[in-house]
């Protein structure tokens, strides 16, 4: 088959769409659904700018086909805030100045969210290791890692 109908939940919205089988999940999100938060940096799995969560797990959406996400729940940066209330990670990235040009930020925040969900309150060293798949050309990482750590601590204290 060259096209296939997929059934997919994206940020709490249900979609039934026909897609070309060679369409990546990233292309589907950006071009078919207009969700342009996830970015295309390399299309090789190197930069992490395209990171979204598939059934809670961070993946490079450039290396996955839309048809492979059939039946899955996708969370992108657009689905993180609750109305006007930003997710604690989003708010912290702003408050701590962990965003410069912002190109890497959606991917960074999605990976960070998955890490906090899975590991709770990991050490700074663990955060560094787990976020190695998200490249940033601007911040030098220090602020990003500190912000994630601080948010993890705040959430764990709740």
């Amino acid at each position, binding site marked *: *088959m*060259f096209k*296939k109908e997929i059934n997919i939940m994206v940020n709490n919205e249900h979609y039934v769409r026909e897609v*070309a*089988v*060679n369409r*990546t999940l990233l*292309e589907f999100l950006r071009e078919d659904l207009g969700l342009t938060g996830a970015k295309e940096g390399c*299309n*090789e*799995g*190197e930069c*992490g700018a395209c*990171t979204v969560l*598939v059934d809670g*797990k*961070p*993946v*490079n959406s*450039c*290396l*996955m*086909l839309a*048809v*492979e996400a059939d039946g899955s729940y996708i969370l992108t940066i657009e689905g993180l805030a609750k109305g006007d209330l930003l997710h604690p990670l989003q708010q912290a990235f702003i408050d701590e100045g962990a965003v410069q040009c912002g190109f890497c930020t959606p991917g960074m925040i999605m*990976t960070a969210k*998955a*890490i906090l969900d899975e590991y709770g309150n990991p050490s700074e060293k663990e955060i560094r290791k*787990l*976020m*190695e*798949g*998200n490249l940033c050309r601007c911040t030098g990482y220090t602020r990003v890692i500190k912000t994630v750590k601080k948010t993890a601590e705040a959430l764990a204290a709740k």
Partner: protein
Amino acid sequence: MIARFDYHVPASLDEACALKKEYGNTGIVVAGGSDVYAKMHLGDHLYDHVIDIKKIEDMQGIRWSETEGLSLGAAVTHHEIERHPVIKERYDVLVQGVRTIGSLQVRNRGTIGGNICTAAPSADGIGPLLVLDASCVIHGLGGERTVPLKDFFTGPKQTVLADDEVLVRVTVPTPAPSYGGAYFKYGRRNAMEIALLGISVYLEVADDGKTCSAMRIALGTSAPIPIRAQKTEAYYIGKDLSDRQVVEAASSIILEDASPRNSWRADGEFRRSLLKLLVPRTVRTAYGALTRE
């Protein structure tokens, strides 16, 4: 963009094998796709047919029992392996290896079967499985066969898999209650790095706590295929592993097992000195990691 292809999702092993045989060089088997789709994006490695096998039941799941050992479905991801409680406790050297693969995102998609079948000399999942004495369960149209992992690779990026065969599971015997394991990946930076050298060690000692009674060493990126360093392994048997000089002395033997050549990543001379330095060091790390009752 990935060039157009026809997409097949076989429901059974036999169906997958039949499709693989039918499409031959015009088709490619895909599990996690972290290797295949990345290459397709680059525009080389184009295929008319993608055969997606990762939903096949027989390739799923991690099974373990003391008597049967570990059985990993070929479609099990690296992240499932690194998070598995029994693997962490009993097969730590495998966790050390797969943890170094790509990134969390890559490990959530990349599978152990894909890592083995890519047959890259640098694959970080292969060395640990080699020293754990793993075997490959292979399915073809004629039935099933089991091949020791050390015999699975036949040449650069070449495996024993026939036109109609896929890898179904990887089995790993239960290691000794007390053993030392270590994986050392040498790269230029800490993140997202293809190994310039990957060294895996598994060792056991006698009751005195220091005389080597079993030694298995695997080397990645030291030859066209992942290899076991059998001469070096033999040297260590019966030796006192608590004696640093004795451990270091293997550096004069290691080049009989492997003589890495030049590549764009590093020249052979550099890799040879790394081997002499790092193989004994990894043996020392494994000895230090020995689980003692």
